[in-house]
């Protein structure tokens, strides 16, 4: 275990050294991490609960109070604090987005690896399924699916319905990407060597294919996360979210429904929009940079860092004879 730990530490340090240099990547990471922190420690960021109604001295609800009157972001139509809703909404948006993203990534990787590695009729079958999903327009399909699943009395939270529907529909691009990468890797000689050694399919996929495409999967996951969050917001805006657990999309839906715009209550509809942009932009920046960095063809050369240099097996005798020849 000790050597593994050393290797792991070395890899992480190497990664950080390259990552640190990239400004866009750092900005992306900060955006995403800050949103995740706010979501995890939501109660620490607000003294209220999202359902608390803020009242004035006379006990009347402060409706549509601008930021100058109450709190950093004012109140909504029912007198609830917008900042609190935003902070708690981060939990829902990010959780749904991440869960759906991971499901999509998992299915996509599974399909991509299976299709690419086994090839032939397996490949054809899986890729035709992918093609079919790829050509159906996403939004109408999702609307229909979410609506039907809710009608079915499955006794699951509407948020889980969203997670499942988004997760089951957004794996197609990942599958295609990973399949193409697996196709090139499986023809490489170290895979032939592993087969010549006598390794089975499971061993080859685990030890040779997966480590090569893992960076691609990681980078792609981050990009899929942004799509998932965006799609969740879209669906929630159309009223398919859970009204009892409002996400940012649900907030926009409320604001739209309750005429925040005609009332000029910009503090109700702008913040959730910015929050969505904040997270998705962070994910896209981070994902692009990761993709660029982890691409094996763009990694640094082995002679760049001195600590990677290898001494010749017989350094003394070689340098000895070399200097003689020169003199």
């Amino acid at each position, binding site marked *: 275990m000790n*050597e593994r730990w*050393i*290797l792991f530490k070395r890899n992480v340090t190497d990664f950080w050294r390259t990552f640190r240099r990239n400004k866009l990547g750092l900005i992306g990471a900060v955006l995403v991490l800050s949103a995740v922190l706010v979501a995890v420690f939501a109660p620490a960021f607000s003294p209220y609960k999202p359902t608390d109604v803020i009242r004035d001295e006379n006990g009347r609800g402060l409706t549509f109070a601008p930021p100058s009157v109450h709190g950093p972001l004012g109140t909504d139509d029912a007198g609830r604090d917008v900042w609190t809703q935003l902070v708690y909404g981060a939990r829902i948006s990010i959780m749904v987005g991440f869960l759906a993203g991971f499901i999509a990534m998992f299915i996509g990787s599974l399909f991509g690896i299976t299709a690419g590695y086994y090839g032939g009729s397996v490949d054809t079958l899986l890729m035709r399924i992918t093609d079919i999903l790829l050509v159906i327009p996403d939004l109408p399909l999702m609307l229909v699916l979410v609506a039907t699943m809710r009608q079915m009395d499955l006794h699951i939270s509407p948020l889980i319905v969203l997670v499942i529907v988004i997760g089951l529909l957004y794996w197609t691009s990942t599958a295609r990407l990973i399949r193409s990468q697996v196709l090139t890797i499986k023809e*490489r*000689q*170290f895979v*032939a*060597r*592993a*087969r*010549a*050694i*006598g*390794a*089975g399919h499971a*061993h080859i996929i685990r*030890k*040779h294919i997966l*480590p*090569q495409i893992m960076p691609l999967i990681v980078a792609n996951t981050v990009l899929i996360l942004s799509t998932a969050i965006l799609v969740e917001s879209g669906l929630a805006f159309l009223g398919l979210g859970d009204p009892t657990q409002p996400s940012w999309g649900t907030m926009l839906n409320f604001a739209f429904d309750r005429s925040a715009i005609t009332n000029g209550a910009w503090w109700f509809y702008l913040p959730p929009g910015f929050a969505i942009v904040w997270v998705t932009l962070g994910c896209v920046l981070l994902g692009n940079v990761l993709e660029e960095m982890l691409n*094996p063809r763009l990694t640094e050369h*082995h002679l760049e860092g001195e600590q*990677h*240099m*290898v*001494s010749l*097996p017989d350094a003394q005798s070689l340098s000895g004879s070399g200097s003689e020849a020169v003199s």
Partner: protein
Amino acid sequence: MTQHDLLEVRDLYKYFPIHQSILDMLRRKPPNYVKAVDGVSFSLARGEVLAIVGESGCGKTTIARTLIGLEEQTDGEILFQGECVGAQERRLRAGLAPLESAGTVGTREHLALPRIALKRLRQQAQMIFQDPYESLNPRSTIFEIVAEPLVVHGLSRSRGERAARVKKALEDAGLRPAEDFSMRYPHELSGGQRQRVVIAGAMVLQPELLIADEPVSMLDVSIRAEILNLLNDLRRQSGVSIVFITHDLGTVGFFADRLAVMYLGRIVESGPVKEVVANPSHPYTKALLSVVPVPNPRLRRERVILQGETPNAADVPNGCRFHPRCPVVMEKCKETDPEYKTVGDGHQAACWLI
């Protein structure tokens, strides 16, 4: 039980089908094949080194890949310690007749032979690939790479034992001290060191047979001798048999016992190295030998420069397959294929001039 050679190859054929267009299928054109290996027989005794020499594209690498089971032979038998390699049986059972053009081979005699499972074969026969830059997984450490055969075959399960075997294999392959290398990644090593890692990985199972597919052709000239010396040492120490595939006749005399010269999918001349080099019988062998550099500059030989290119393996010439380029071609060569004739002790060649 009779004493078997370690490896015996009888009438090995490997044809790759050429993809046909739908139009050709509708016209019922017979499918075309690239005849990469077209009737090759040889045998290898224990501890022997057989060099297979030939131009690029003559089917050397295909033979190597078929021997280790990476490709399935189209026809013919590969016997490893008297046991059949490959999925021929399945092929015949499925009713796939041997290729028509293969002619005389394809008897069902070998169905009776005991068969060796691929997994067991690959424990006893190992392959060294041509390109040391490609044959190591860039994301595995040297230790993982060398230990992989042990892991795959479930040998030396205890950590200490496995580490000891890997260490021994690395040091036997000239990577000393092994601790300096085991935690590195392939990209941190030079080409020669990588090829040593490949050799260590092949030798860690203590195989009976090593198939070396041009192990030095991708390396710098200065490192070639080191790797060849290493292979020679390993062979002396462990008594491993080696099928040494190369296009460089110069390295053959160095440590091979026997030599087989291939041209366009077939062995044209084979025999003990000294005998073949001293007394080449086939015009192709003569041409190859005449262009090997001689250390003594005063010693000038007449060079035979072959005209033209190697014909396409999908379109093998009639008669002797060497006749379009042969400097001493006769009418007979264009019509009938010569049989193997014994020239000396264990020395055979296929040419009408003998």
